């Protein structure tokens, strides 16, 4: 003869609203998926921004002391002392600090055959802070020519601004690299004449750069004497939008390049969008959980006379509870199996898209996602268990 549970299920099976059930499970599935995917994206974004990869904006920022009117009138140089640089180096958000050396000699840069000549100003940064490393990026006193890296903005300014307005030909990067410049380095009565040529264009440093070896040599031989402090620093940071970094900049009256701020803003917008998605997902999950709970309450109420009769025949409330809770358990496992599957699938899709853009997302599903999933699992489980228990016991 049959055992009890199948018979109890049979006695209560007459009235099941399949459409309610599908609606509730489908809704919960959608909500859970939305929530989990946005939490996953959020955690990927955190990991990416905090790691080495530069997904949005740069990891490099420039720091300078803010120029104030009073300071300028007082003739202050506004440089960074060694102590200040060391303080900066010790900050947890700083990976490394590079001094930007400025030329302290007079330099004339010209193209003799065009009779063009201009005063020039150079800076140098340690090579590890450059975004490009051209082949010819070396200099020693026997070199025939000084390599230069100029900001990519300069050639754009010339091509789209100056050349168009003055009826001059536009220049490609390659053709600019072929031009030989005449460089004269001067100081009180002495001068040094050499050639210079552009070897690359930097998107990161907005200046005219020479190799550190040339800068050191020229400053030593032709530079103005006296102690010198760098006016600008280049800082490599884990997270250009780090709260502590922003606070440090504000507290020490520093100014920084706008790029970092922009990336920070992009990130804030992205975080907002992801939070909104997570919020919507959360609301859908709550609504779906509510519908699921209602479904079981309706099921129990529809079978109220059967439940009462079963109880009068001596069926314990645990058996009645389990008959319904078993179905809730199946629904919840379906919801979580489905939404975790959808999460893995969408993670792969997003990874493929992001890979094509040249970025790499962290592998696998994040811990925070699993925690969120576990929290929802427990919420649905407990919510339904309580609702079913109450519904059944009220009829006994």
């Amino acid at each position, binding site marked *: *003869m*049959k*055992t*009890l549970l199948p*018979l*109890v299920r*049979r*006695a209560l099976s*007459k009235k099941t609203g399949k459409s309610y059930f599908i609606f509730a499970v489908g809704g919960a599935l959608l909500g859970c998926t939305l929530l989990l995917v946005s939490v996953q994206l959020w955690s990927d974004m955190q990991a990416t921004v905090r790691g080495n990869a530069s997904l949005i904006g740069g990891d490099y920022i420039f720091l300078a002391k803010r120029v104030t009117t009073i300071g300028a009138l007082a003739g202050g140089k506004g440089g960074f002392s060694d102590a200040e640089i060391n303080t900066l180096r010790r900050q947890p958000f700083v990976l490394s600090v590079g001094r930007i050396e400025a030329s302290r000699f007079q330099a004339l840069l010209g193209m003799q055959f065009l009779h063009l000549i201009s005063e020039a100003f150079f800076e140098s940064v340690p090579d590890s802070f450059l975004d490009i490393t051209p082949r010819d990026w070396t200099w020693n006193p026997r070199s025939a020519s000084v390599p230069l890296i100029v900001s990519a903005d300069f050639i754009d300014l010339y091509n789209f601004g100056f050349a168009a307005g003055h009826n001059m030909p536009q220049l490609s990067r390659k053709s600019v690299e072929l031009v030989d410049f005449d460089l004269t380095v001067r100081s009180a009565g002495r001068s040094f004449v050499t050639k210079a040529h552009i070897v690359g264009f930097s998107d990161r440093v907005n200046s005219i750069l020479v190799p550190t070896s040339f800068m050191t040599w020229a400053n030593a031989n032709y530079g103005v004497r006296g102690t010198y402090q760098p006016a600008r620093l280049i800082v490599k940071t884990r997270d250009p939008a780090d709260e502590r970094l922003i606070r440090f900049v504000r507290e020490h009256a520093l100014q920084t390049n706008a790029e970092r701020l922009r990336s920070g803003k992009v990130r804030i917008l992205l975080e907002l969008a992801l939070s909104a998605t997570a919020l919507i997902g959360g609301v859908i999950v709550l609504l779906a959980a509510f519908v699921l709970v209602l479904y079981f309450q309706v099921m129990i109420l529809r079978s109220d006379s*059967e439940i009462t*009769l079963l*109880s*009068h*025949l*001596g*069926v*314990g*409330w645990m058996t009645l509870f389990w008959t319904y809770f078993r179905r809730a358990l199946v629904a919840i496992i379906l919801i979580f199996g489905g939404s975790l599957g959808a999460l893995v699938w969408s993670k792969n899709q997003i990874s493929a898209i992001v890979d094509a853009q040249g970025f790499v997302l962290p592998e696998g599903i994040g811990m925070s996602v699993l925690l969120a999933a576990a929290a929802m699992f427990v919420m649905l489980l407990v919510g339904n268990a309580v609702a079913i228990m109450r519904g059944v*016991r009220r009829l*006994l």
Partner: protein
Amino acid sequence: MSIALHNVVPHPLRMFLTDHHSEVWNTQATFNKGERVFVSAPSGKGKTTLLMILYGVRKDYDGEVVCGEQAIRSRNHTRWTSVRRDSISVLFQELRLFPEMTGLENVALKNAITGYADELKLKEYAVRLDVAECLYRPCRQLSLGQQQRIALIRSLMQPFEWLLLDEPFSHLDADNAAAMAALIDEECESREAGLIVAGFTPFAGLKCGRELGL
């Protein structure tokens, strides 16, 4: 275990009992262990109410019903569940079978709760009451008389000290009533169980020790 009623007044009968003498309501009444009692009354005097109070379904009464040492009002749900599994069995007046389930399923459900009888015994009862072929049809297709006999077989699928029968022969012809009375007699005899039968007039085929008027 004997059952004692101390001044029990069901709430719906309060008004009626002010000028009416009853041998059960609003007095001291005792059902002794193993005793067979016929409770007779016209409609509306609380026959079903009495059985449902004893079975723990109705709790809307004043006074106390004491079973053994304990007032049954204090039993919780778990206690009632176990009482309904092995102390008291009932044949409901309205039969209360699951209409979509077959006769066999209805009976097997009760038996699955208690594990009291085997399938052979169950079918033997069905043959004796001439409802063997009803076991395989949904109960909604059965006549009330057939349903009444299936419901009785269900009530036998457990150990009991008291068997409560609410108008047990109401839908049966004389032959079937006699067969059912014989089966009830045998079962109560072998289990040394008490019997409380509610109805309009006593059925000659089922011997009861005394009669109480409501």
